[in-house]
């Protein structure tokens, strides 16, 4: 029963990894930009939530009403005024600039908030559980986190395939020049995609900060988890990304069960095995 418990926790954590991954994969899909600062932006969202909850006395989940639009705004401005200037035929400039941004964010947060680890207090919901049997009980918070991850993935899927904005995203990804002929400004589309990516990051950041301690240096590891979930699931498939996050979460849970020191290693090993055996991931996008 212990194992069932561990694996269930792993699945639920997978939802968080899928949230890290969804924003990453959206940006790569629309503009072929690999955002190295993605994980640090997750941590930035966590600290913004810390400031908002402590100064306004809001609980963390309510603070999302402020953090999500704020991060979206930051994302739009970041893309419009900085990252759009780096895009071109060469993949290197956006990589270098987002890498630089990652360094700036880590050190900036360290300067302002010190390297001490922090946590958001969500109150009673943190310890509330749903008891399924005498051996298996699920935390309400991890369940909520997983439900939100599924809702975000489903929402992004609907947006991509059922709305005018989704069409603009996909068309811009196909052909940046020709979209201008149908009235679309690719610079605006890129900025909207980044805004959306950072809105998802905001949710991920707040859940991360409620679930565990966070500090300014933990961004890069979140970036890696996001990458791994995307690759395991298969590039360009959002439900695959959720599955990738779950596989990663479960692998880490099983590793930790065997030996606590093996938690991260087990996740990376599963990622490497998938990369070696199925480099296109489990659910690559099918061309219709």
């Amino acid at each position, binding site marked *: 029963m212990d194992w069932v418990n561990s694996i269930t926790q792993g699945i639920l954590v997978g939802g968080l990894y899928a949230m890290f991954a969804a924003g990453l994969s959206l940006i790569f899909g629309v503009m072929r930009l690999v955002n190295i600062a993605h994980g640090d932006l997750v941590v930035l969202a966590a600290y913004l939530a810390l400031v908002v909850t402590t100064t306004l006395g809001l609980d963390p989940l309510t603070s999302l009403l402020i953090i999500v639009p704020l991060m979206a705004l930051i994302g739009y401005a970041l893309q419009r005024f900085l990252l759009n200037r780096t895009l071109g035929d060469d993949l290197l400039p956006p990589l270098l600039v987002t890498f630089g941004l990652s360094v700036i964010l880590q050190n900036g947060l360290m300067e302002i908030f010190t390297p001490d680890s922090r946590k958001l207090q969500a109150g009673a919901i943190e310890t509330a559980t749903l008891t399924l049997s005498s051996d298996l009980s699920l935390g309400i918070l991890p369940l909520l986190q997983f439900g939100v991850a599924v809702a975000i993935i489903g929402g992004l899927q609907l947006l991509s395939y059922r709305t005018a904005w989704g069409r603009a995203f996909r068309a811009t990804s196909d052909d940046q020049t020709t979209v201008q*002929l149908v009235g*679309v400004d690719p610079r605006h589309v890129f900025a909207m995609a980044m805004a959306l990516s950072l809105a998802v990051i905001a949710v991920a950041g707040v859940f991360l900060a409620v679930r565990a301690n966070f500090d300014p240096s933990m961004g890069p590891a979140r970036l890696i988890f996001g990458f791994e979930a995307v690759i395991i699931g298969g590039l360009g498939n959002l439900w695959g990304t959720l599955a990738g996050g779950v596989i990663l979460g479960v692998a880490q849970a099983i590793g930790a069960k065997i030996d606590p020191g093996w938690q991260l290693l087990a996740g990376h090993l599963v990622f490497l095995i998938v990369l070696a055996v199925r480099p296109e991931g489990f659910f690559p996008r099918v061309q219709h």
Partner: protein
Amino acid sequence: MRDPLLNVSQLASFYGDFQALFDVSLRVDEGEVVAIIGANGAGKSTLLKTIAGLIAARPDAVTFAGSPIGGVPAHHLLRQGIALVPEGRRLFSSLSVEENLQIGGAYSRKGPWSLERVYQLFPILRERRHQASTSLSGGQQQMVAIGRALMSNPRLLLCDEISLGLAPIIVREIYERLPQITGDGMSLIIVEQDVVQALKASRRVYCLQEGRVTLEGESQSISREAIASAYFGS
């Protein structure tokens, strides 16, 4: 005489350092069909791209409905009523046929063209509407490209080599639909290598050679000899 809808005067266009157009002047009246012919590399596509806003130009080198539009980006010009059917069709490959048409109408002006009207013009597209645009034949893809441009309800439609790579029977079929497109007073510029087709479909014709206008005249009365010498130089 009324002001023309489009007026190009002494236009010079560049691809990087390479000058593709020299001192090009032409006009298109409201509701008129104008053909631009010329050999490969004569600058026809460059001219259309410049008018559509994909290539920068001196502001007053191009005026549309009385306002200077040289250098205005393409996504703004679409809203003002200039749409381009690009050479090689350039459909969005991850969008279905219907989505390609829908995105064409996303920033539409008011006008007669709608999804329904495009399907009436090209009924085969209705049958294929949920298919990937890349799964269509060349002729059907060209219909999607034309339909996508029409969805924006342009005042001026620019067609770049719509016969390129298509069987003659398909080309004839597409050209037979042109009167239905211009029927509501839309102006049209067609760029063609197929001179006979171009002359048949247009009221006036310009011939470009090495980036310069070498001939201008009424399509029905212009002589073969004049075209031959304008086309190839003499």
